[in-house]
């Protein structure tokens, strides 16, 4: 298992290296002015050249890449150029990520706690009232643009339940509406897939054998079907949880939450290429880690999945 983990880690590092290098090189092919922010038009040609030279942007690209990685290994993510000019990127992220992560983890916890049992219940009551209500909910959430129900939640949450309109760090209740808003989509998604995997398994022969054995309907659901249906869920849950670091652009905006939501789009638009590089690195790393953890958990749950060839002779 250790060997496998190391191999996967090395593979992940290689993927990251390729992704980041490609992004880095592509950004260097963009017009140089982008690195200087909005004010470059008023600068003289000499100032522009000296600023570029100062940032090392006139060096050959491989040299720039080498410097980037060298700094990275020393734990230096560089400084922002436009977003907050001259400010260390690590500090920007350190103030934003925990906020989004808290919101994301809470909403994922809610989504898992509600979505998965809901899907299981819907499968169990297939075609009956619970299934129909659940399907109605899923269709509503999946079909409506998220902006609409986010807005409605905020509108009625604040007016009817007099919950806080704006997020504040000192008041945990102010997180309630954002958490519900963010989790709705995941609840619908988890319920939809859980229902589907449950139904797939309910039609399996092993369920018929369990019935013929005299196992009660409830035990069949709990001990046989649920666990089998959960295996494919286990693959994408870690990824979903980790990617909450990226934040939710709309909800964070609605409640004035100072998180990472929309940060990548923002820095791309403002051509803060130093930040783009770092964010791409971070988000890719999260994506890769999510996939690895998904495979790992699936391997834990399903004895048929062997991550390592011939590790134990089954």
């Amino acid at each position, binding site marked *: 298992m250790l060997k496998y983990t190391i191999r996967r880690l090395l593979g992940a590092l290689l993927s990251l290296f390729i992704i980041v290098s490609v992004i880095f090189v592509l950004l260097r092919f963009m017009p140089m002015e982008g690195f200087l922010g909005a004010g470059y038009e008023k600068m003289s040609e000499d100032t522009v050249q000296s600023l570029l030279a100062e940032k090392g942007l006139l060096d050959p690209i491989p040299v720039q890449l080498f410097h980037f990685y060298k700094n990275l290994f020393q734990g230096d993510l560089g400084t922002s150029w436009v977003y907050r000019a001259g400010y260390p990127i690590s500090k920007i992220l350190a103030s934003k990520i925990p906020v989004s992560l808290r919101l994301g983890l809470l909403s994922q916890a809610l989504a898992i706690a509600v979505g998965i049992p809901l899907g299981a219940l819907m499968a169990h009551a297939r075609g009956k009232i619970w299934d129909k209500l659940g399907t109605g909910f899923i269709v509503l959430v999946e079909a409506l643009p998220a902006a609409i129900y986010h807005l409605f939640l905020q509108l009625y949450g604040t007016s009817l339940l007099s919950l806080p309109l704006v997020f504040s760090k000192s008041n945990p209740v102010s997180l309630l509406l954002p958490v519900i808003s963010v989790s709705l989509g995941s609840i619908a998604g988890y319920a939809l897939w859980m229902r589907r995997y449950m139904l797939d398994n309910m039609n399996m022969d*092993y369920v018929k054998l369990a019935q*013929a*054995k005299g196992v009660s309907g409830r035990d069949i659901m709990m001990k046989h079907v649920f666990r089998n249906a959960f295996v494919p869920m286990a693959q994408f849950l870690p990824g979903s949880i980790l990617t909450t670091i990226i934040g939710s652009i709309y909800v964070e905006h609605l409640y004035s939450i100072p998180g990472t939501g929309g940060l990548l789009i923002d820095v791309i638009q403002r051509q803060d290429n130093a930040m783009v590089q770092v964010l791409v690195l971070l988000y890719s790393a999260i994506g890769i880690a999510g996939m690895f953890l998904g495979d790992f958990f699936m391997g834990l749950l399903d*004895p*048929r999945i062997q991550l390592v060839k011939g590790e134990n002779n089954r």
Partner: protein
Amino acid sequence: MGQKTDAAKNDTIKNDALQNDAVISVRDLNVKFHLRGQRLHALRGISLDIHQGESLAIVGESGSGKSVFIKNFIGLLDKNGWIDSGEIWFAGQDLAKLKDEKVWRKIRGGKIAMVMQDPMTSLNPLKTIGWQIAEALKLHQGLAGEAAKNKTAELLSDVGISLPETRMKQYPHEFSGGMRQRVVIAIALACNPEILICDEPTTALDVTIQAQILQLLKDLKEKHHLTTIYITHDLGVVANVADRIAVMYAGDVIEVGTCEEIFFQPKHPYTWSLLSSLPQLAAGEEELYCISGTPPNLFQTIQGDAFAPRNPWALQVDFLYRPPYFEVSPTHKAKTWLLDPRAPKIEPPAAIRRMMELGKQPQARAGRKESADAK
């Protein structure tokens, strides 16, 4: 009909059942299904007794209702199906009217256990086989912990799995198809049933394993004093294991008799056709017989004998009236007008005549099993 006469009628059936030591007595069973907005008449008035300790084979082509028939015994008819009329007497109660899930759960497995067709898919892939056997032990024998573990090991060696202590900790995917079927059989035995239903137990297995599994089932039947019901379309399997054979066609048992009677004295033209199409019964250069046409559409009401349209020996009456059972011997009866005293004498096809000749020589009867095995 008043309740009293109903009860009286039930009593006679019950007494009947007791007299001929039937464990299951089915009377005029009609099962229908809702399918694509139509009604399908899947079982059309089956009456059959299953005797204590016997080995009965139910044969018939796909769609003849074999599986639907036995699903009634464990109350696992598909949701769109229902028992329209008829009775299934088992242990003093009419299963056709039994609705209580709790009672059904005691019968399922505990009284009537089942071995399914495909061992590759009938075990839960995420649970060790020991767990799956222990689940049955707990439900029907109340065993847990060390006792359950010992019994599991005992059952596994019973079904011919070596190193049971190691094997019980393994998962289904670590077993071959034949081994998995042994595990499925061990699960059935763990329920400690009176009746074991084997639904095409060897269809998914290769030929050498088939013979082993059939032998195992035969041995276990003796050891555990089981009544076994085989469902199959493989007459080779039937010849191997059955004391008695019930031939099904279009949702009805059209001929039933001892194994010898069905193989050597078949009376129904469908049984003739079925046997004639066995490759091992064909002579030399003769072209292999094949039943023309398709089975009847059970969405429609069937007039007369269901087999008549495909029956080259059909009489006019076959198209008009449904034949009743004609008794050939106390153990042998068939639903064909050919057995009516007024019917013309009709010669069965050549392959059947050869079988009938063979049947007259006592030593050939012993040979029958080998010829079927050789398949």
